[in-house]
């Protein structure tokens, strides 16, 4: 049986916090709210035609990710200002905005994987679903992204 779409409010109640967390990581606190609006308006627009209600969280986070990309494009791909990046921050469980700014310089798939893993705390399988790739590919992108961050921040 095809799972039915729950009332949209359920998505807000369950996932708005995660979407906001991802966006704060991706575009910074100041612009996260605008991207949040864009994300949910786009989701609301597309929702009645959504075929599969199986992974609504991944679906929302994918839209959030695209809105973050749009946002950066609109600002002319200007990276956030980078002051000194403290070395310890690489292993810091709550990376600050400087780290996220660095994440933004990664290739798109790696960037998405890192954002979804550390911004939204998604497991590999859900990152794969959100990115439309295999779990193995998601794991590889995440690994490559982290490796690159370590090198750049070393």
């Amino acid at each position, binding site marked *: 049986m095809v799972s*039915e*779409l*729950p*009332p*949209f*409010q359920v998505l*807000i109640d369950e996932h*708005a*916090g995660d979407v*906001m967390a991802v966006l704060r990581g991706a575009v910074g606190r100041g612009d996260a*709210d605008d991207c*949040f*609006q864009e994300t*949910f*308006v786009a989701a*609301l*627009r597309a*929702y*009645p035609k959504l075929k599969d209600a199986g992974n609504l969280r991944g679906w929302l986070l994918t839209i959030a990710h695209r809105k973050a990309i749009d946002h950066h494009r609109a600002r002319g791909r200007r990276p956030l200002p980078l002051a000194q990046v403290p070395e310890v921050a690489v292993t810091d469980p709550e990376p600050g905005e400087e780290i996220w700014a660095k994440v933004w310089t990664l290739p798109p798939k790696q960037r998405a994987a890192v954002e979804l893993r550390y911004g939204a705390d998604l497991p590999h399988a859900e990152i794969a679903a959100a990115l439309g790739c295999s779990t193995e590919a998601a794991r590889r992108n995440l690994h490559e992204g982290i490796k690159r961050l370590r090198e750049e921040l070393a």
Partner: protein
Amino acid sequence: MRAAIERLNERAAAEGLLDVAYASADSPFGKLLLASTPKGLVRIGLPNQNADELLEELSRRVSPRVLEAPARLDEARRELDLYFDGKLDRFELPLDWRLSEGFRLRVLRAIARIPYGQTRNYTEMATSAGNERAVRAAGTACGRNPIPLVIPCHRVLRSGGGLGGYGGGLEMKRGLLELEGALNRSPSG
């Protein structure tokens, strides 16, 4: 987060994406659930009815774009408050009838014309809807009334004078009829 969600509701409404707005409302009988479309009030859930199931039904039958947006229900809440205070004997709210059709819709439209404080029986409702023999179907139409209170199915009684049924429970039906002064022999007046 709350401000962000309120902003989203406003934006959704402005862009025509708020197909079903809902909110809860207090009543002397317990919490009601109110839902409206851009056309008008479409559904009221009575206190003993499951709100989650009701929202799922709206998602299925009207649109899955269902959002909790209390500001959209302010007018409905205001009229209901006045009604429960005995200060309103006729609802002026626009209604969206889309959850009913055919014979049931005709029965509900007939019920909507029963004046405040008066009662009718199921046979009269069947007759008003164009089929005097469909008494049982008229009863079913009352039972499936999507907008109770505003479409006053509590004013429809059994032919012998018995209360009949009520989706919100017989105690509530009796309470509403007492509020309207429609139960002359009410012992608790």
